[in-house]
């Protein structure tokens, strides 16, 4: 076993993950799913019970789940973004620049998606009315 292989195995799991275009879309997808979930939850619970839930457990659980997915994606991206390299823009066609670009973009998208989910959840909590 070579030294490099040993050091790769020693790396933590999140460092072994590679950000790709697929992982890049995880935060906005979580945001979109939460957005849809919010509308469906409000429509169905209002139609079924005719009044707004006093303590919307399912809604809060869904929101928490979306936030966790976004936070974990952001956290992994943040670690990978710290791979040593040149300052932005990461536009060279090298493996390291590609990684740092995707990681930075994922991190920024995670931040935006986090705020998006919070802004979607706040009206549900504050308005609390089926009308």
């Amino acid at each position, binding site marked *: 076993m070579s030294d490099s292989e040993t050091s790769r195995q020693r790396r933590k799991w999140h460092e072994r993950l590679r950000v790709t275009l697929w992982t890049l879309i995880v935060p906005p997808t979580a945001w979109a799913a939460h957005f849809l979930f919010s509308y469906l939850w409000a429509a169905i619970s209002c139609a079924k019970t005719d009044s707004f839930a006093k303590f919307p457990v399912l809604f809060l659980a869904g929101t928490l789940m979306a936030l966790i997915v976004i936070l974990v994606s952001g956290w992994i991206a943040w670690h990978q973004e710290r791979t040593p390299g040149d*300052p*932005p823009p990461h536009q060279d066609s090298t493996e390291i620049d590609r990684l740092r670009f995707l990681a930075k973009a994922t991190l920024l998208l995670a*931040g935006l998606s986090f*705020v998006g989910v*919070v*802004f979607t959840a*706040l*009206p549900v909590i*504050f*308005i*609390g*009315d089926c*009308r």
Partner: protein
Amino acid sequence: MLLVGCNTHQSALAPFGVEARETYWLTWSLSAGAVLIALLVAVLAWRATHSSEGALNHKQGMQLVLWLGGVFPTVVLTGLLLFALPQMRPMAAASNDLTIRVEGEQFWWHVQYEDGTRTPLLAANEVRIPVGRTVVFDLTATDVIHSFWIPGLAGKMDMIPGRTNRLVVKAEKAGTYRGVCTEFCGLSHALMAFDVIAMEPDAFDAWLEAARRPVKAASRTTSGAKLFSDYGCNACHAVRGTEHDARIGPDLSRYGTRASLGAGTLEPTAENTAAFIRDADAFKPGARMPSYPSMPADHARAIAAWLKELK
């Protein structure tokens, strides 16, 4: 052009109700905030273009983007959201609050006061509300979609055939105001308005009691009253206390106290009323009320004079 909005009877910038007042202050706070941010951006832009070479560096720039482009807007927008959301919550109403049912029709308003178990009081094209009390508007329409908006009182609410939308309001200042239809509903959409009279609670109670009483017996036998029946006006219009109780057109009980004619279209003078009776379509294109071109002018005037007596 801008001065058109500077009035006190029909303007969201001249609030007389709780919801409109909150929206008014929200509007001014947002405008003031927007001006401050625009000034800040102008200062930063000036600094960026006027700094000597080497005074700014890439790292500082990125920090600026992060804090002023990311964190600052997020904090401000979150603050605004938390400030505005409670205001969007519909006002609560108790089951014994006065309910006013308003139905939009091309191109007028059917108004019905429902207070407790008594027979509802019918009226048209005028809404009276007590100051300081919560009032519930149950809004619907009978033909096409209309929208009910009293700018100084609260936000607008659609009136949809087959559905009842609820708007809860509370007036804070007595006065005479104006409401309008804000959903295009046909040829005379722009002529579909109504008078709103916010009254002190005692005066309102007295008015509601008085309005329930039938019109004076003496005014039931004048020539105008007879012509009203002869020309078939009673086939559509009701006058409380008489045998006329049709609900097709606007209720004309106490027409003499109305602040306008034809749902906010004309001054309710006897001459205008007579002219409107003979040719409603000339004043309100598309109105359902038929014209009576063959009606002699003195007959129209007699009916108008009788209607003006109904107080």
